[in-house]
């Protein structure tokens, strides 16, 4: 007796159907990641709305088309959040399909770790549920993790259940000139350390006495806002590699301790080993044998 599927999701499944090329449009905030879909592909939008939110459970179920703005408005009423840190007009489904975490990943971890349950529509136009609605679950294969970052190539996200966190009591940005790696070594679980090769920005969160005590360890000034993150290119390194990497031309901001570099300069996708590539192709071929989903857009470059 698996859980009942909501009518919105069923309607979405019908809309997608069992044939024809399809792409799901979210907030178009990261539309070009992986390339644009082919001309003339049918564009659909995932259902939206907060369908179940239980603040005491700290879980929220919503349509994949729900915008982050809508989501955070609902959650913040109860002092909760999901730390996506992306454009408010992005959709939950879009954010997960692209699978790029926000700048507070250093503290809160990858956004994929907030996903508890996913319902997607498969190439046959049928609903597939994976994961479970509770905060902890190891029932069956972890398709939720697979769906995050899949750019909608394996199925169309229809509904997701996410784990929420309490909004920290105090949140504070500091900035100045200090060795970012030194800053990283000094702090206990900071929320973010950003660095543009010259200036460093630090986000501290928690109860105010802790935030004060942690900022006293640093030689930085308080600031109102984080820096703007360049968004035309994105490089992903090991945290340690930031110490010695070839600095890109143009503006860039790196997430210290994480390894992401946000750049003006577009860049090539990282290489994938042949073995992994063939496994990934197997997955694509099995889950979307007709190549219906998001043609033109690629997770795997040739």
């Amino acid at each position, binding site marked *: 007796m698996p859980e009942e599927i909501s009518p919105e999701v069923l309607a979405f499944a019908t809309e997608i159907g069992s044939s024809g090329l399809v792409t799901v449009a979210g907030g178009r905030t990261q539309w070009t990641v992986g390339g644009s879909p082919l001309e003339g592909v049918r564009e659909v939008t995932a259902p939206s709305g907060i369908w179940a939110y239980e*603040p005491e459970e700290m879980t929220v179920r919503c349509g994949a088309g729900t915008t982050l703005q809508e989501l955070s408005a609902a959650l913040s009423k109860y002092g909760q959040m999901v730390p996506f840190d992306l454009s408010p007009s992005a959709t939950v489904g879009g954010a997960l399909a692209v699978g790029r975490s926000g700048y507070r990943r250093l503290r809160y971890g990858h956004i994929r770790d907030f996903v508890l349950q996913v319902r997607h529509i498969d190439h046959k136009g049928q609903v597939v549920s994976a994961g479970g609605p509770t905060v902890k679950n190891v029932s069956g294969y972890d398709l939720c993790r697979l769906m995050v970052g899949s750019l909608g190539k394996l199925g169309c996200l229809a509904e997701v259940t996410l784990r929420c966190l*309490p909004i920290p009591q105090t949140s504070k940005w500091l900035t100045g000139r200090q060795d970012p790696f030194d800053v990283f070594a000094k702090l206990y679980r900071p929320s973010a350390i950003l660095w543009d090769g010259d200036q460093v920005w630090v986000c501290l969160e928690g109860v105010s006495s*802790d935030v004060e005590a942690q900022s006293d360890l640093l030689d930085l000034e308080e600031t109102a806002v984080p820096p703007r993150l360049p968004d035309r290119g994105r490089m992903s390194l090991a945290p340690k590699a930031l110490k010695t990497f070839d600095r890109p031309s143009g503006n860039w901001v790196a997430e210290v301790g994480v390894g992401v570099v946000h750049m003006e300069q577009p860049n090539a996708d990282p290489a994938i080993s042949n073995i992994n590539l063939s496994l990934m192709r197997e997955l694509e071929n099995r889950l979307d044998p007709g190549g219906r989903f998001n043609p033109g857009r690629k997770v795997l470059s040739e």
Partner: protein
Amino acid sequence: MQKSLQDNLFSDLQTLLGERARDGDFELGLYGKDGSVLEGRPSIVCLPQSTSEVQEIVKICRRYDTPFLARGSGTGLAGGAVPIGEPVIIATAKMNKILEVDLDNRIAWVEPGVLNLDLSNELLPLGFHFAPDPSSQQVCSIGGNVANNSGGPHCLAYGVTSAHIAALEVVLPDGQIAQFGDLTADGAGYDLRGLFVGSEGTMGITTRIAVRLTQNPPEVRTLLLDFADVRDGAAAVSAIIAAGLIPAALEMMDKRAIEIVEAFVNAGYPTEADAVLLVELDGLPGGVEYGVELVRSVATRHHVGNVRVAADEKERALLWKGRKNAFGAVARIKPDYYLHDTVVPRGKLVEVLEKVYRIADAHDLIAINVFHAGDGNLHPILAFDSSEKGVLERVHAAGRAIVTASIEAGGVLSGEHGIGLEKRDYMGMLFSAHDMATQDLVREAFDPDGFANPLKVLPTGSRCSDSFGQHVPDGAWV
């Protein structure tokens, strides 16, 4: 298996491993069981010491068309490491080296046989630890943690194993070696790493693991709260979380559990209480202080009896010792136990707990509850004596009823022990046939012929490729 074939297979493995390939009658018996009540029998046991040996074993098995099965410390509770269909067991226990601690990247590369607590002990002087801390952490292997996506008390705040694995080296079911994930932030392509974690050995064998290191908290406070009514305790759990606090751990024990555990550790658990909560807060001092006060005031609103704050590290360790040894201590009242593992929404804890007691009563069994209340992860223990006639049928019937009750309350089949052999036939309670067929498609991408840990996770009907065709033999349920 045919005798001569088996002999040839063994002699090939022996050529590779020398005396680390075993087929002695007594020894095979030892590897037929894990921490569950299920039992099978392998055809051969291999004790490799390196990735390349694992790779060669897999290749040899493939040559003889024989399935294989990875085994860590054999503490799994869902029968994941129980050999069905006479597979070759590949035990990773001898692959137990911590290969590299890389503080700049905040990871450590370890072999799969490294014991969870050994790793954290090794990291202690450096100020770090590996966050997942199953109650079996002194003995379970990191490879087993990865395969089962294990959790522990502290996963409430820190997340389960999946969130703490950066990369894996894997010997695939066809004998190739791959690396899933890497030390970079995003990785490339689909998240094979995330898919492998929790796949219970059915997608290959991990031979090297990059685990993420978590900073040791500067301040830790452990509280023991007792309640005269288990309902108040359960309500306090929800209220603590609803107040915006995520404790590092939030564990609950019912009356019977308290009594049994106290007899073992003498930690001063209040045996007259109906339930206790073990709450741990960690982090920076201000947050911890704030948390302690919040827990105190919430608990007071829910009629807490005593609030005991561990005075020092020794007392803290003692309080935890009781919790972490609770399952085994059950054997003091009955020789056998069957431990279930389901998750329900926190708000349904009381309701489901009461159902659990009723179900146990109806089946004339004793139920003991000690569990990760903070994430609604129930661990009802059914204690019994297998020498009693007909008791096993009652245990299984009660178990099924408990799982059903949990799912009806909006819960799931397993919070951390996995599906393994024990719950594969329950999968249909949570997933539709189509859901399971999709999961099987994914598994098949890794192991189209079903060589790796056959007959686990998915029920027989849902797989297209059960080349070893058997149903779970009745004898497995001992």
